């Protein structure tokens, strides 16, 4: 689905963010990226979406052979929700459909169904400022889904939520995962979240990128986090992040 080979990127003069990092995401996988603030996670996403061009290396989407024009080929959910404040929930969700110039009317019933499934049916005519943080995040997520792309890049979708809302979103996402049939690349700061949701985790550090497999069967439930296995894994991951400097 997505393959990144020996990617290097430098901001302006001398501010090198990556040097020759490689990673890949297979179809249907849920892969997380963790790393400290400023390690370049969001920058990586901007490179994949095509907002930035790599200095070296290639980014292949859907097995595409060239690193060329990538804009418009993945669903991207930015770190801030970026809902358009002058549009209602429904109109925000319809935005990618408008952009791709598909028939809006034809899609409308499908979109309404999704709004319902996301628990947003009652709010379709509300404006973003009338929503709580968790609802805004769900709208932004739905908007990303509505791009219709198979590969979704989600940049800290649950970063701004309180622990209870976050927990609910986890349960909800895990429940939905089978149906969605999407491939997800997911940025988070929350180790628990990363382990709970992912098939694999990439740890992004100043000296490169490190892969880490999550050995948990699916379907998963959010109750998992209290299991000993899970806690051991979390400890292990934390140790990996903090100590591995080789």
């Amino acid at each position, binding site marked *: 689905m997505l393959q990144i080979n020996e990617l290097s990127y430098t901001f302006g003069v001398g501010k090198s963010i990556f040097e020759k990092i490689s990673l890949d995401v297979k179809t249907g996988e849920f892969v997380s990226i963790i790393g400290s603030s400023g390690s370049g996670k969001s920058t990586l996403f*901007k490179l994949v*979406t*095509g*907002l930035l061009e790599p200095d070296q290396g290639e980014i292949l989407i859907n097995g595409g052979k060239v690193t060329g024009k990538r*804009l*418009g*080929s*993945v669903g*991207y959910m*930015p770190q*801030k929700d*970026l809902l*358009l*404040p*002058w549009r209602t929930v429904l109109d925000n969700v319809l*935005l*990618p459909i*408008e*952009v*791709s110039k598909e028939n809006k009317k034809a899609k409308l019933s499908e979109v309404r169904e999704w709004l319902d499934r996301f628990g947003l049916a009652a709010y379709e005519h509300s*404006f*973003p*400022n009338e929503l709580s943080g968790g609802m805004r995040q769900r709208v932004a997520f739905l908007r990303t889904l509505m*791009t219709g792309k198979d590969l979704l890049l989600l940049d800290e979708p649950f970063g701004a939520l309180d622990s209870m809302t976050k927990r609910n979103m986890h349960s909800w996402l895990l429940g939905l995962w089978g149906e969605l049939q999407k491939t997800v690349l997911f940025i988070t700061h929350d180790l628990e979240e990363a382990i709970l949701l992912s098939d694999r985790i990439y740890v992004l550090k100043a000296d490169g990128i490190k892969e880490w497999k999550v050995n948990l069967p699916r379907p998963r439930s959010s109750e998992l986090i209290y299991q000993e296995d899970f806690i051991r894994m979390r400890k292990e991951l934390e140790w990996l992040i903090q100590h591995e400097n080789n």
Partner: protein
Amino acid sequence: MKTTRIKKWTSDYGLFLIVVILLVSIWQWVVNHGIIPAFILPSPSAIWNSLMDNSELLFEEHLPATLKEVVIGFVISVTAGTLLGVGMHFSRSLEKVLYPFLVISQTIPLIAISPIFIMWFGYSIWSKIAVTILTAFFPIVVSTYDGLKSGGNEYRELLLTMGANRWTIFKKIQIPLALPSFLSGLKMSVVYCVVGATIGEWLGASEGLGYFSRRMSGSLQADAVFAAIFLLSLLGIVLFLLISFLEKQLLKNKYHI
């Protein structure tokens, strides 16, 4: 519902009205007592009488003439100013070339170049409209341009990732973002349109409130001069309020940026 409206209105304008009434009374008193000669500053009552005496002429001939210039000038200013602002936003070169000219256009005294206008447009309505445009389109260009510059970069990037082209981004993001600034430019501009039409009429006309006030000033009929000015000022305020109302309607419930 209705009483709260009235209440709101009084709290918004009540104080202003009291001050106005006070000032007008003082003004009347000052003129009545000969502290300021009436041919320099006529009393409010004299102005009102003159307004009534000349009402037919003012309302049926000169006001429509000025209004026509203002409206045509405003429409052209808005169209041209918006296009220029948008053009400058899209093209750095255009911006670099035009911006200094815009500033220069505001520093040149209009009266000095009036023969040029008259030569090009004669004493037709177009010379007045040209002056109107010259005074009124600057705020529109600046506010459109500044409005389009105003952030929105993150939204832009978001739409880019959806595969949007420049035009879609312009339509879906930049226009809505620029709207508040644009509208406040519109408000200033409409006031300057009235000023511009007045100046244009001074530079040569055979009708219009500016023409009327200038003629009356030539024969020292201060009350008629001020009657015309009163109407001009009123016209400016009414147009300003109209745009303010439009602004409120357009931005209602929507802009919580």
